[in-house]
């Protein structure tokens, strides 16, 4: 049984860049991707800011050299784009060389296409290929078919913690000896369904979100896809690869409090962080930086903050939310923030929490608001919490 599972490649497309290097540049330039709606067709245009990938479906297809006729949803197109980059980054060219699987996360799945055609499907004889793209598995299968992945596939949907969970499943599949390599991550395109759903919950900020700020008013939705190539210790050795990071800790816990809200004390968050530290065999003080879930909703940031104070016994390490850059990208959030965490480990930088001004009145937690370069970053904790009380915490470490 393999002891370690390494990250050997990363790929990402988000509102702040169509590939990892562009994301990195935006992070360093403090350039947010949140703005007025331009791609999504909705009555909320101009009223609710979002973080969109700045390419149309046609442009995404063109970049992948796909024909215009393929019934590919935006969710699948974003996914293929990010997976392609991750495989290239990991120098994976022969999928069949090792037992390779895919664990992909999505919440919106094919809803992006379904909401366009639904009434015609339902009320008339109209039919097109998107009648088959609704299921969550669609984007995963499209990615698998594009790259010829046949050995194993599954799809995860646990709301905002989906892709953190996909990574956790990928790691466990490799550790159990069932697979040698897993492409793990998540993809979610913006849909009217999601935008209106979150809007009814009244947790969408009408301006750019302010994670961990006392005046925070909610989150901004975003779209993205981000994937990592996970490989077993043996495969890395055989291939002579220099891995980017090791997934040293992981835990999944449920808050068991409310379908859409976190407990004020953050039971689930606390439990997930403590268990993740345990699997990593690390002490709280070993963590150099926390990429917090930090959505900017009053509820999340309070609950997560309190849980961190408890986990770290009042001495919370440097932390920031990168959601003021990318928006909350739902099923892609955990893997996108993993990509950012890998960049932090590699480049020895900590990315700032934008739009923060005033500490919350409940505690004196102050996120990192400026870029830190040449800092010690050995172990990073990444938090993801979501609807249904689903919470997952991952820990990434240097490979040296």
């Amino acid at each position: 049984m393999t002891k370690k599972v390494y990250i050997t490649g990363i790929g990402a497309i988000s509102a702040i860049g169509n590939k990892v290097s562009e994301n990195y540049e935006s992070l360093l330039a403090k350039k947010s991707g949140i703005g007025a709606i331009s791609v999504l067709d909705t009555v909320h245009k101009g009223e609710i800011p979002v973080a969109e990938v700045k390419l149309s479906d046609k442009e995404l297809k063109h970049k992948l050299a796909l024909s215009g006729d393929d019934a590919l949803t935006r969710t699948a197109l974003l996914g293929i784009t990010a997976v392609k980059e991750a495989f290239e980054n990991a120098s994976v060219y022969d999928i069949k060389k090792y037992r390779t699987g895919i664990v992909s996360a999505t919440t919106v799945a094919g809803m992006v296409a379904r909401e366009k055609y639904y009434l015609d499907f339902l009320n008339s004889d109209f039919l097109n290929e998107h009648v088959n793209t609704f299921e969550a598995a669609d984007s995963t299968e499209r990615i698998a078919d594009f790259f010829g992945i046949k050995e194993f596939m599954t799809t995860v949907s646990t709301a905002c913690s989906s892709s953190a969970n996909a990574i956790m499943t990928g790691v466990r599949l490799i550790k159990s000896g069932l697979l040698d390599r897993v492409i793990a991550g998540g993809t979610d395109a913006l849909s009217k369904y999601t935008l209106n759903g979150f809007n009814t919950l009244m947790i969408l900020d009408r301006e750019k979100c302010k994670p961990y700020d006392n005046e925070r008013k909610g989150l901004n939705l975003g779209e993205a896809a981000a994937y990592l190539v996970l490989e077993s210790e043996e495969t890395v050795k055989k291939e002579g690869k220099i891995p980017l990071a090791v997934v040293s800790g992981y835990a999944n816990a449920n808050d068991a409090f409310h379908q859409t809200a976190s407990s004020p004390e953050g039971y689930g968050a606390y439990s997930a962080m403590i268990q993740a530290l345990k699997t990593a065999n690390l002490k709280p003080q070993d963590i150099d930086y926390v990429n917090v879930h930090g959505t900017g909703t009053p509820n999340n940031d309070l609950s997560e903050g309190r849980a961190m104070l408890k986990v770290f016994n009042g001495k919370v390490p440097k932390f920031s939310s990168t959601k003021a850059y990318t928006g909350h990208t739902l099923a892609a959030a955990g893997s996108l923030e993993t990509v950012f965490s890998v960049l932090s480990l590699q480049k020895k930088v900590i990315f700032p929490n934008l739009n923060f001004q005033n500490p919350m009145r409940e505690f004196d937690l102050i996120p990192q608001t400026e870029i830190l370069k040449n800092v010690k970053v050995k172990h990073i904790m990444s938090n993801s919490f979501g609807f249904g009380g689903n919470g997952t915490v991952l820990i990434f470490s240097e490979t040296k």
Partner: protein
Amino acid sequence: MVYINGAASISPQNSINFDVFLKGMKVYEDLFLKSLTPDYKKYMKPIEARRMSKTVKNGIICSQIAMNEAEIEIPDAIIFGTALGIVSDTEKFLEKMLYDSERYLTPTSFIQSTHNTVAAQIAHKIKCRNYNFTYVNRGFSFESTLLDAIIHLKEGKKNILAGGGDEMTEHYYKIIKKTGMFKQDETKNTDLLKYETSGALCGEAVSFFVLSDDKKTETYAELKDLRMFYKPENNSEIISEVELFIESNDLQCSDIDLIVAGYSGNKKEDEIFDNVLSDKFPETPAAYFKHLCGEFQTASSFALWLSGNILKYQKYPDFIKLNARISGKISNILIYNHYFNINHSLILLSEA
């Protein structure tokens, strides 16, 4: 070792009690098969029953029965597999949004519509703060759930609550029917394999199991192994997958005492089962189950409920028999299912 210590299913049949189930199958002549409605009052408060959708309620009930049977209160993990999630609430929100141009929406159906609602609501109800997961990969949704549960037990966990299920609605059926995947007209479930029409008979069910690392007197069966394979290119690939699976468990095809096959009434793709059965299991007693629950992505969870009961009680009714071969003692059952030749799965169960 992985043991099934609790099992419950709510389906179009009287599956809440195996004795009642054995007495006779429910006969339907309909476009798709619908789950029977349990007496919700017995299991939850009226306000909960009103608020929650069918799949959530049935999931809660099945999980409770399975946990009672296994004599556990809090599992180490709750995992659910569903391809479509909560279709009824998804449609409610989607249709209101589209008909009213994104205005006058309320959050209730949106909140209930997320795929992870079943696993989350069970956790909430029993205050279980442990691992909570939802897999949503078409015909691998329930199989992924089982695999995750098996890995958990290997990692040292004790009791895993694992379930699978999907629901079908009038509107969903109306749309999906256009693809030609499902029967276009009312179909009599008792005659499922006699129809010459293409398309499967659509259905629904929810099932839950407690998988544990220790055997009890009431244990249903041992879950020996599980294999998924995706979009096989031809029949020989399927045959070799089946051979490899049996061999890797130190068995021969002749050691299988009963095959439970996923015949769906879809003539062309049912031939896949014919081929495997005639090629590898020419003398083996065989049974089918989709005339009972219909075809849906997580139908293998109903097959697992059925097969677990067959192993435990060492009997099965005539109405599931595919051939007249007689089973003696039933020690090994192989469940072979596929969903429209996309997702294939093999599940091996043995007497505990």
